[in-house]
């Protein structure tokens, strides 16, 4: 039964995660690393939200919070409209993850069939005598031959391992998958295969993806919506087409400008960002980006900009957003 009014599969409201930074035993809890500092987004069924940003901006922490691998310090997560308070088996079944490093995310002493059998056993998904068939089906769905089942992960190539990781994720029929840089550890030659596999699975199974990446070209290809994170906050969120046509936030502009283009001569203006990312333990006042922003004004040091609409579902958190030409 399909309803016409679409409700998001996943809603995230004001997600917060602070880590205590203990310098020594005597000086406890004085500093906090604000890894994720109040972010919100929705993901619809069959759609992909890409979360981009540089290392350390809180992308992976966000993923772990959504997966309930870390405890929230604030905010709410709704899965299919229901508030998620703890990681029930039902929740675990609905939401899965594809990990970045296919070498580290498969239990090394398990054969592929044990890796794929485990979710079936834990969730009691099919009767024991049908598990074998289920495993074969899942392997076929990710484009692996069934003889892979009796191999160990270290006997497989990176691409095969990542396919096994994807097979494990889809074997429980989830509605939502977090893809944490699913291809960044793979050879360039097989990235496209894995990405196309993910896109095919999304289409066939109506999966919603949270796609975490720092590869903007990839994001342009796979996502429906882009959210740019900087130091634990979303600074810009827009439909993918809009975003790549004209990013509004100065940080997004810098990010886009820094990505490589096929013809280096065609690069428009390239103003490299100066300085380092501010420490998440010691955030600047006002706007977090002002220390590196080429457009910063006095107001930026005082008032923290909030996300506001710049039309057409495009949101940006910058005081000078109206002055920025696309």
């Amino acid at each position, binding site marked *: 039964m399909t309803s016409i009014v679409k409700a998001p599969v996943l809603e995230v409201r004001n997600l917060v995660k602070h880590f205590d930074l203990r310098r020594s035993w005597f000086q406890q809890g004085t500093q906090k690393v604000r890894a994720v500092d109040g972010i919100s987004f929705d993901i619809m069924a069959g759609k992909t939200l890409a979360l981009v940003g540089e290392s350390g901006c809180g992308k992976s922490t966000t993923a772990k919070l959504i997966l309930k691998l870390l405890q929230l310090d604030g905010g709410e997560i709704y899965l299919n409209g229901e508030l998620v308070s703890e990681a029930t088996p039902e929740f*675990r079944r609905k939401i899965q993850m594809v990990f970045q490093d296919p070498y*580290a*995310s498969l*239990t090394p002493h398990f054969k592929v069939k*044990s890796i794929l059998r*485990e979710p079936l056993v*834990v969730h009691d998904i099919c009767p024991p005598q049908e598990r074998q068939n289920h495993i074969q089906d899942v392997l076929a769905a990710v484009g692996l031959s069934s003889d892979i089942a009796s191999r160990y992960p270290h006997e497989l190539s990176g691409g095969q391992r990542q396919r096994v*990781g994807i097979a494990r994720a889809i074997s*429980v029929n989830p509605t939502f998958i977090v893809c944490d840089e699913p291809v960044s550890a793979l050879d360039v030659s097989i990235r496209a295969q894995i990405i196309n596999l993910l896109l095919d699975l999304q289409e066939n199974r109506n999966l919603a993806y949270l796609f975490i990446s720092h590869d903007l070209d990839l994001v342009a290809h796979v996502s429906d919506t882009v959210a740019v994170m900087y130091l634990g906050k979303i600074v810009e969120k827009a439909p993918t087409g809009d975003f790549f046509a004209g990013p509004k936030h100065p940080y997004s502009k810098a990010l886009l400008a820094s990505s490589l283009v096929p013809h280096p001569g065609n690069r428009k203006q390239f103003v490299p960002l100066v300085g380092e990312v501010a420490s998440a333990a010691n955030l600047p006042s006002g706007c977090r980006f002002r220390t590196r922003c080429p457009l910063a004004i006095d107001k930026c040091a005082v008032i923290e900009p909030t996300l506001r609409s710049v039309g057409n579902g495009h949101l940006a958190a910058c005081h000078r957003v109206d002055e920025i030409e696309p």
Partner: protein
Amino acid sequence: MSTDPAHILPESFWSSLSGARRFRLNGMVVAGSLILIPLVLMAVFASFLTFLDPLSIDASQKLLAPSWAHPFGTDHFGRDVLARTMYGAQISLRVGFGSMLLTALFGILFGVISGWYNLADVIIGRFTDSLMIFPGFVLAIMIMAAIGPSELNVIISVTVLYIPRVIRTVRASVVEFRDAEFVEAARTVGVGDFRLLFLHILPKAAGPVMVQLSFGFAWAVLVEAGLSFLGLGTPPPAPSWGSMISDARDFIRSAWWLITIPGCMITLAVLSLNLIGDGLRDMLDPRLQSRGEL
């Protein structure tokens, strides 16, 4: 190939125990086994290999040199030394096996608790530290003096002495792997703590623990002999190798076989177990591989 519903441990558990993928039998393990296996067979089949009673006293036969009737001679009570040596092997192996079984059981249990729960780690950690500050044998003597000499008590004191090493080994593996990405991945799939620990994490500790236990076995044989030598171990007239040596001291000039035979047995048993332990360690640690070739 059919799936087995009663399949509790994945086949991979067993292969991780044997380290199947890099399983290349190490020369030291082979050499150690070649010594140990005859010793074990001798102990197990002692009653078939000799018809003589290791306890029967015969004053007319005392202190006889090795001969066809008594290949290892007789002691000052006229008891057959070969029979006593064979039955002595039973005691040594029983103590070694019993204490290592207990050590493995409780060592893994406390090691897992210590690695998993931070609060328990503090308590168990201090406990293992305080056990390890004593020189091993001195603590064994203290325990035996407190609870009295018997074979079971030897097993208990060896267990108490050796358990900190196993606890630490297991704890180290649990701490190393509890935040590993494959553990996180399994948790994402919905695997519970118990299954995570016993199927995903503990098999990674199996190798190091086996190494510890084979060294511990050798040590247990030595401690049993030492305690019996001092009269604190297996009480007479049981034919413990340690008490045989102790008895033989008075006849060291006149009856060389009395002290030599059990001494050689202790040496062989400890040597073989240490060889196996060393070999296993080299097999598990590829960086030391070259050293393991004999």
